């Protein structure tokens, strides 16, 4: 089983980010206390109390103090048992961190006591782009973060990168990333979401939309560069050295149950999804008074098939036909035969053995392929 903890605080708002967070850090401690209460209330949500992964996401979990981490982790240990992962790997405990929080070795050493994997939000090594995005760190901190993390004993590291700004910056970012030789890289196409600074700029015409052919080009460059360097492109936005896949995120794509704690956190129990209210004070109030803060949605067979297509096709594992058949209660292959053959002809989909998978060019159209295969 898998546990996600959403730490909804950031020092400042990045211009592209539409995750739920607040910059009012004074509420951090009471909110962590509410999260501890939520763990107490909801620990039985999952079918077992055995956790293979824990993920501190956000927001910026690296803003947590030792005391706050203590509260959360003690509560987790009280209600759950950590067990080895599905590949026999030790339990994965990831913490998302921003480079500016990783400058201090003492602090890093503290974080290491609570987590064995860091996901570092570098985004780019380009100074002006970092400023344009309103990131809290600078280019130098970005580079140093990985070294310092290693010194503190974090071998299992992932970095986040964003592409879609300019070809020259992206080439330099990729080069820089390779020199760091981290086991895992997540790379995202810059997406302009409406409820962000960039979104508002776009609406006012102060920003032009991300050029789609540039994005396609950079994605192809990303994939070939990292694959050549020995990474496995195991999910559209994720690359890892062999056997260093992100276990927690893989759980999402393989439809394993997870419990999400904290404002806006999502949970999945195998048959339904639910998410907490994306508002810190409503969340705390709800948790502290025992009133409901979540919206739950039971998934129909079609919903489950569609979610599997949506997430599965993005991964190296693809979608197993036998699983689709089982969810659907009939043969997926015969139900969607014309669409499948059309997508195969287009060169986007392959149907190998018992699996549906995207081709390299199909990865650029993953959403479209999935939705064409959707069932009603």
């Amino acid at each position: 089983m898998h546990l996600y903890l959403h730490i909804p605080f950031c020092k400042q708002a990045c211009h592209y980010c539409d995750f739920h967070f607040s910059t009012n850090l004074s509420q951090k401690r009471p909110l962590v206390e509410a999260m501890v209460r939520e763990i107490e209330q909801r620990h039985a949500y999952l079918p077992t109390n055995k956790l293979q992964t824990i993920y501190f996401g956000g927001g910026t979990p690296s803003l947590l103090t030792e005391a706050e981490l203590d509260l959360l982790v003690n509560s987790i240990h009280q209600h759950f048992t950590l067990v080895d992962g599905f590949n026999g790997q030790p339990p994965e405990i990831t913490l998302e961190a921003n480079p500016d929080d990783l400058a201090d070795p003492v602090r890093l050493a503290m974080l290491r006591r609570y987590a064995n994997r860091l996901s570092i939000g570098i985004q780019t090594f380009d100074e002006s782009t970092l400023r344009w995005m309103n990131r809290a760190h600078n280019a130098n901190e970005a580079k140093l973060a990985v070294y310092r993390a290693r010194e503190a004993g974090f071998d299992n590291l992932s970095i986040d990168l964003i592409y879609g700004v300019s070809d020259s910056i992206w080439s330099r970012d990729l080069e820089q990333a390779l020199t760091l030789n981290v086991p895992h890289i997540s790379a995202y196409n810059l997406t302009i979401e409406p409820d962000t600074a960039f979104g508002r700029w776009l609406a006012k015409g102060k920003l032009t939309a991300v050029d789609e052919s540039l994005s396609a080009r950079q994605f192809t460059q990303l994939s070939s560069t990292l694959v050549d360097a020995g990474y496995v492109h195991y999910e559209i936005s994720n690359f890892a050295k062999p056997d260093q896949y992100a276990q927690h995120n893989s759980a999402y794509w393989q439809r394993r149950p997870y419990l999400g704690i904290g404002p806006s956190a999502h949970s999945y129990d195998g048959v339904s999804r639910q998410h907490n209210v994306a508002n810190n004070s409503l969340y705390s109030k709800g948790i502290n008074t025992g009133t409901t803060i979540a919206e739950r949605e039971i998934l129909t067979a079609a919903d489950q098939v569609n979610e599997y297509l949506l997430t599965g096709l993005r991964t190296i594992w693809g979608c197993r036909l036998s699983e689709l058949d089982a969810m659907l209660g009939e043969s997926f292959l015969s139900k969607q035969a014309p669409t499948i053959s059309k997508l195969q002809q287009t060169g986007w989909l392959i149907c190998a053995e018992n699996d549906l998978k995207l081709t390299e060019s199909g990865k650029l159209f993953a959403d479209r392929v999935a939705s064409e295969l959707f069932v009603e």
Partner: protein
Amino acid sequence: MKHIRNFCIIAHIDHGKSTLADRLLEFTQTVGARDMQAQLLDDMDLERERGITIKSHAIQMDYFHKGEKYTLNLIDTPGHVDFSYEVSRSIAACEGALLLVDASQGTEAQTISNLYLALNNDLVIIPVLNKIDLPGAMPEEIKDEMVDLLGCDRDDIIPASGKEGIGVPEILAAIVERIPPPTGDPNAPLQALIFDSHFNSYRGIEVIFRIKNGSIRKGEKVKFMNTGKEYNADEIGILGLEQEPRDRMECGDVGYLISGIKVAKEVKVGDTITSFDNPAAAAIQGFADVKPMVFAGIYPVETSEFEDLREAMEKLQLNDAALVWEPETSAALGFGFRCGFLGMLHMEIVQERLEREFDMTVITTVPSVRFEVMTTKGELRQVSAPADMPEPNLIDYIEEPFIRAQIITKADYVGGIMGLCMDKRSILKNQVYLTADRVELQFEMPLAEVVFDFFDKLKTISRGYASLDYEFMDNRESDMVKLDVMLNGDKVDALSAIVHRSKSYEWGKKLCEKLRELIPRQQFEIAIQAAIGQKIIARETLSALRKDVLAKCYGGDISRKRKLLEKQKKGKKRMRQVGNVEIPQEAFMAVLKIN
């Protein structure tokens, strides 16, 4: 008979006809205030909302004047140019008319043309100046206008306000005093003029008539003289607020007839009902079979809804005798119907009724008029759909329908309107100043130009202060061409149009530009071309789509993303495929707003 008065109200849209009618009904206690619903005569929701009358109606009132009881039949008339034939028949059923003019707006084109219809039918006109309570009223100026128009005495004009109930008793008194009772021979063979019909889902078609000569008995066998059909007068009666059955109706009466007729098409407005046993020698004059003027394809948005659409069209036709249609197939749109309408408003009404009453969303193709095409083989063909147009090399010449259009507007807008009409290939025939500020313009113009956004433009240019009326004149030779649209070389039949050669380049260019905006990019480049015959006259290129994903997808994204993609897929299902190009339904509609 001397206590009967049959009258109608002639007014422009919004000049307050329905409100005044409501007041007359209230005053004569035909309807209690409790039952009153604004604009009682307009049954259809659509009529009430738009403030226009689509179907005509009739209602009977009892009114006491100087101690004597009179029967007043108010025959309401449809208020739009598309239905001028129906108006003419309603007028023919009356001896008098209230000419209602808005005290702030003055007479409008339609009011004038309907007035001429009434005068031609020797109706007595009672001028009424309505809405005198409004702050913008200019009673004296408008009265001048009315005196000029009617040659009436200034004092004959009754000041009124339907809203405030001002002038209502005076109007009722004038109806009795000024309008003559019906004439006609009660002992002659039956001649009753059909001026309307209604569809009742339980009882079939209700025929609305006015007896000109003779009388009719319940159960009597009757004959419709123009269609030659025979029926039993199962039920006859008068039209109060509810229908009131009668055993016998006399010369001068207005009423309804139910005889088991199921389909509106069987009943022709303007036809004459006569007695089977004692038939009249001739039908009442003025019968005409109304012909559709505007044609367009109507297709279901969801191809699977064709049968539902057919059912809806059949039901619509039950009470819309003017609507004609036949099945049509389009390579782009699938199965649908080629429909004929009286005019643009009629087309809009049909579309709206399909949506409201039958919950059908439809795609309407480019409207067309009926062209007469002489082929090189000397064959005359009627062409009302681009698909039926012969190849250019097989055409000797093409004739298109011209109309006589009458526009009344404020003097300020004359320049703009002239410009618009010239742009629409019109010929200015006359220009008359009705007052210092109001002008009547007469044009001869091709109907084909009116069917594209002419009304909207006229309204915009005149800020709403222009009214239009038109009638068919004749067919004239014109240099028309069929303009096709191709996507990656495949013709999209539903986007073809027949346009004048002088406009074809502009049309083609604009259409290609519009389609470039509306067609979503696909994973290959798309050439959007406009062509006349083999000749390409415009081209736009839609570049290929390089990617449609690359965003992240974690635990919190899954539901949202699934729902988003499901929604997109629904939208895509509504798209039509031509060759390998997917076309959204908006693209088909865009042609209608090309300018």
